[in-house]
């Protein structure tokens, strides 16, 4: 198991001169987990995007350290897995193709069939392996995103509204994924559901006041 930690140092974000959130600080050491809670519009999605290195913070600093090395922002993608309802996969490719293409874009390596099959099996999509994502229901798309996010064994897994569009079986799968990640690496969950927030050992509320 690799040692890793993520640190938020008084991070603020302003957007079009509107303050989304101000001076958020937190830190998680692996194995560990953090829930980011708050109402709609409190900036949960913005904060997780900053954690993933997709957005930059207006002030403050975010740092992910893996095995004692701080990961520069342009290489964060190799260490981060991300699942959210607004993340899109390529409709014209099948589930297996999406996983393989995105993984080879990420690391240049060709994912083995067995690897892809076991991931799809885990999220319950093995039978639709070669169907185009465009034909999937939104719940199935959400499941496929978990397979894409886990193929490179990320040091930090970020789940934004982890169970949206999912049925009971899907939620059980996600709970399993979250449990494994929080005992082997870093898990970040952004949610306004208290049960999902309860998966995590720490919570930071956003948008108080």
């Amino acid at each position, binding site marked *: 198991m690799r040692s890793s930690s993520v640190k938020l140092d008084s991070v603020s974000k302003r957007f079009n001169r509107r303050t989304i959130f101000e001076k958020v600080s937190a830190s998680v050491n692996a194995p560990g987990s953090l829930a980011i809670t708050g109402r709609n519009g409190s900036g949960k999605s913005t904060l997780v995007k900053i954690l993933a290195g997709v957005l*930059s913070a207006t002030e403050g600093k975010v740092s992910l350290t893996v095995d004692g090395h701080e990961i520069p922002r342009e290489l964060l993608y190799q260490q981060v897995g991300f699942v959210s309802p607004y993340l899109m996969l390529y409709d014209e490719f099948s589930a297996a193709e999406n996983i393989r293409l995105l993984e080879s874009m990420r690391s240049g390596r060709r994912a083995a069939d067995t690897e892809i099959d076991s991931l799809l099996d885990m999220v319950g999509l093995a039978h639709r392996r070669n169907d185009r994502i465009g034909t999937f229901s939104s719940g199935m798309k959400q499941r496929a995103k978990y397979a894409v996010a886990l193929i490179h064994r990320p040091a930090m897994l970020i789940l934004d509204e982890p169970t949206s569009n999912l049925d009971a079986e899907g939620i059980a799968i996600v709970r399993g994924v979250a449990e494994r990640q929080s005992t082997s690496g870093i898990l970040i969950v952004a949610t306004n559901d208290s049960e999902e927030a309860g998966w995590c050992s720490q919570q930071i509320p956003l948008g108080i006041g």
Partner: protein
Amino acid sequence: MNYIRMSAIVIITYVLISGIAIPIVPQPQGWFEFPVIPGLEEKARNIFFHVPTAWTTVVAFLVSMWYGLRYLRTRNMDDDLKSEASAGLGFMFCVLATITGALWAKFNWGSFWNWDPRETSIFILLLIYGAYFALRSAIEVEETRARLSAVYATLAGLTVPFFIFVLPRIVSGLHPGAKGDPEGAGPVVEFKMSPSMLVVFILGLIGFNLLYVWLLNVRVRTARLEYRRSTPQG
């Protein structure tokens, strides 16, 4: 700033008076008379106004690009305000330079527009400014607007060397026997002016650039006021 303001007013007033009123005679006797440049005669007076405005256009563009690049580094919205203000002034000077140039070309070359290399480059500069503002108006989020317009200004700036070094050669290649009188432009372009003209010319360059600095200062200040006013309090 007060010195800049006062010297801009004094210098430009001086350039206006001497540029227009100093008589052009075949045998100049001193600083108060200009020599006749063959092929230009009275039209030579345009040099004092056209060239400085064109020069200021380029300076304004470079300043805009410089502040754009600074924005990319600092992410300070004030740099973007400066970049935009400078681009706006550059556009104004560019229009002035185009009009003075076209008027002069009408009387010297026989038509308002000849696609001479210099006319082509100022036309492209106009296009760049136009595109810059079109891009700005098409982006709503101000951080994105600042970022992308800075990138665009820099990209446009990268093509400038091509216009300076390459265009004159290529365009004359595309337009063999282009209309016009290259002799007429020669002494101006190569700074082979008489000392009395050179003084007014250089003062013109300085004066118009000082005017630009003053205008930029006023524009940036109004832009800051506007920015502060529209910022939600608290």
